[in-house]
């Protein structure tokens, strides 16, 4: 039996100092052994991040307080440790990497110096030795051109490079425990795969114990030795990776796994000869950066994008960040103006219409955005938000509000939600409101720009189901922008894969996602985490294929 590095026993974290206050973490026990990866999975609000911050002693002072249980790091109790002792332990015995490499690094300090701070705080090495050690560590996490990156500011680096810097910073003093809080969630799949491999390799070389927090079952399947499922601050169940994925005992775990969309595309729907409602012809968008003296710099965000969408069908645009998929969506809806090419909506060219002439066509195409927490005006009631569009197009107010009620029922929300404000709803409910708002104008085309990406899997599954049902009922055409191939596989009839502003491959989802022709599509599919598992059926994919 290997050494237990982290031993959390019956941990209770309460809101405020009062032990009888609301319990955010309620009796959680976890153990992580040397060289082992324990994945803590759960949906938002399950308490997985609070658990990790408790271990690091980084809970917000006074707001969240550990009121019971114990947390032992290599036998040393952390809950009673002084602030000074905790500071000593951080980076030397336990280290942490975070979700957002974009914001986790100080933007005004070169990254080399940020790593250097760790060494200055915890070692007596001189400047030369520190620099040597940092450069070696940076090479170890497979950063290229380390001398240049050492002196670079974070904004000069890519997301993957920043996360490598975070990992270098966390592991430079070879801590016993690495806590990784959703370290790959903000990264593209191909980068995610590299980072997961890196963490795996470093762990193998150094015997680090890893507490890996994630909401993504795919990532769990890639990296975990053991899995702990959390919900509402309690532990649902723990077990080895195989046990949890194959024979979960708890209902919640089974539901969680069943909600994970499969990478195997759904059964294709019959081709239709319904009219084409949306066409993009060689659509292009070039951004020009004007400069006072120098030559203007041009960036082609989208180039020669040609798409066709028929009534009642779903076309997915998939690609990594910066591939131009959102630019295309925004050009099609004319939120931004394309620089070349055309967009035909129900047979009418709209790419060159003036704002005023575009007005009557706007209602035919509506868009749902990614973040339901920011896309609804917090000071306007849900009813007003939904009714605003129809009122703009001349519908009497009372009629528009009545329609808002109907639409809310259509998206499975109570009709009395009209008089409430967005903050009174959960993320999934807000996305339903956003869908109702988009439907209020009876559009022919609905554009969903990463519309389910910010949602937990179980909520995601419900919203996808809702979109599917609405499509069947109203015959709407759906343009679905996503980075998530699993989601694309479950909702799209056709898929267009984008890279660097161009479409690299396009065709029926069943074909593109199972027999990709282009190297990039293959790489994307290959990088999709947990591609070997058919989560919903609790078995590996190879078996499912038989």
């Amino acid at each position, binding site marked *: 039996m290997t050494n237990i590095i982290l031993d959390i026993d019956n941990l209770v974290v309460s809101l405020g100092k009062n032990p009888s206050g609301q319990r955010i973490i309620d009796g959680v026990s976890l153990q992580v052994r040397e060289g082992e990866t324990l994945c803590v999975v759960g949906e938002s609000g399950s308490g997985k991040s609070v658990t990790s911050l408790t271990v690091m002693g*980084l809970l917000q002072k006074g707001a969240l307080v550990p009121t019971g249980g114990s947390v032992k790091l290599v036998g040393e109790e952390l809950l009673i440790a002084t602030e000074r002792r905790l*500071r000593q332990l951080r980076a030397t015995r336990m280290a942490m990497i975070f979700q*957002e490499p974009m*914001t986790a690094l100080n933007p005004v*300090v070169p990254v080399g110096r940020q790593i250097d*701070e760790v060494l200055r*705080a915890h070692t007596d090495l001189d400047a030369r030795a520190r620099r040597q050690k940092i450069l070696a560590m940076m090479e170890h996490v497979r950063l290229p051109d380390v001398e240049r990156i050492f002196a670079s500011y974070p904004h000069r680096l890519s997301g993957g490079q920043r996360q490598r810097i975070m990992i270098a910073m966390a592991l430079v003093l070879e801590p016993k425990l690495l806590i990784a809080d959703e370290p790959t969630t903000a990264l593209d799949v191909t980068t995610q795969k590299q980072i997961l491999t890196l963490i795996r390799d470093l762990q193998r070389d150094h015997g680090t114990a890893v507490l890996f927090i994630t909401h993504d079952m795919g990532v769990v399947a890639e990296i975990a030795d053991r899995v702990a499922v959390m919900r509402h601050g309690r532990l649902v169940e723990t077990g080895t990776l195989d046990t949890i994925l194959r024979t979960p005992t708890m209902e919640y775990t089974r539901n969680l796994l069943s909600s994970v969309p499969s990478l195997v595309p759904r059964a294709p729907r019959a081709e239709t000869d319904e009219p084409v409602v949306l066409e993009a012809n060689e659509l292009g968008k070039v951004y020009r950066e004007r400069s006072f003296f120098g030559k203007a710099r041009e960036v082609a965000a989208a180039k020669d994008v040609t798409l066709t969408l028929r009534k009642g069908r779903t076309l997915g645009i998939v690609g990594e960040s910066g591939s131009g998929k959102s630019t295309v969506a925004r050009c099609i809806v004319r939120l931004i103006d394309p620089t070349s090419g055309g967009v035909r909506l129900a047979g009418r060219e709209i790419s060159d219409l003036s704002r005023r002439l575009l007005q009557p066509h706007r209602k035919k195409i509506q868009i749902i955005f990614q973040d339901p927490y920011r896309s609804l005006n917090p000071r306007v009631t849900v009813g007003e938000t939904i009714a605003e569009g129809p009122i703009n197009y001349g519908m009497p107010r009372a009629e528009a509000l009545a329609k808002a009620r109907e639409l809310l029922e259509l998206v499975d929300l109570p009709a009395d939600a009209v008089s409430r404000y967005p903050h009174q709803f959960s993320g999934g409910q807000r996305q339903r409101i956003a869908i109702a708002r988009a439907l209020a104008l009876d559009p022919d085309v609905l554009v969903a720009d990463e519309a389910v990406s910010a949602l937990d899997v179980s909520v995601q599954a419900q919203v996808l189901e809702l979109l599917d049902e609405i499509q069947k009922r109203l015959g709407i055409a759906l343009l679905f922008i996503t980075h998530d191939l699993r989601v694309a596989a479950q909702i799209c009839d056709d898929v267009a894969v984008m890279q660097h502003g161009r479409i690299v491959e396009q065709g029926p989802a069943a074909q593109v996602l199972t027999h990709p022709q282009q190297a990039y599509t293959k790489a994307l599919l290959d990088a999709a985490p947990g591609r070997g598992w058919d989560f919903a059926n609790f078995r590996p994919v190879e078996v499912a294929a038989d």
Partner: protein
Amino acid sequence: MLGYLLRRILAAIPVMGVVALFVFLLLRLTPGDPAAILAGDNATPEQLERIRTTLGLNEPLYTQFFTWIGKLLQGDLGTSLISNVPVLTMISRRIEPSISIALSTIVLAILVAVPLGVIAAWKHGTWIDRFVMGLSVVGFSVPVFVIGYLLIQIFAIDLRWVPVQGFRSITAGFGPFFERIILPTCTLSFIYVALIARMTRAAMLDVLGEDYVRTARAKGISETGVLLHHALRNAAVPVITVIGTGFALLISGVVVTESVFNLPGIGRLTVDAVLARDYPVIQAMILLTSLIYVTVNLLIDLAYTLLDPRIRY
């Protein structure tokens, strides 16, 4: 960087041009005869004619403008109508007290306010925070002259530590200069401490919630290191903006303080000129104030690029 500086200085030229045009038109477009305005109510026709010829008021407007601008660029700001002294001489006599007080006030205010703001944000929600914020409200709400007279009463009259009022040039020795400048500096600092401390606290509170501050803590570096190296530098941009505009305000006019301490600064020069309708002086003061604001804004923008590597022009 140098290119950016050059571009910004070039961009300031049209701004100053517009101000100059406005200043020029100020007199010419005021209803009535400019000469009559300048000469006052009891002028004789001969005096009016003399003013018209000296100022070239009989020439076409554009010729007048270019003649005026030409003189301006050579440093000829005209002559005061009241004292007959060249305006440039009047300003140069008055500028030392103003700049001295502005500089010492802003330095004192920064030294006091930034630490106060940092501590208030760090101890957010505690009595320290509430105390600093309370102090800031007092600083904002007590009128400058009340603070001024209070300080005079205590330190000049009762304790006799410093002279009641007046100004000595620094060329006459640091002691006498310092004695006379310390009370007005403290008086003015009050409101600036309030302003800067409040701004620093707000900016620090924003920054302390950022992910990179959490990262810094996770590294196990000391709390001072977290506050000063990671948080304060990121919080500096809005604070610098307030300090910069505050400084410009200080140079161009602290009339009340100048009056209370009987300081011969440019604030009082401006007010006197306005009351006496001494147009050449008023025009010069508007130009000077604009120049100060343009320069300070330029310095603020430069400070941004130094503080935040993401800002590049």
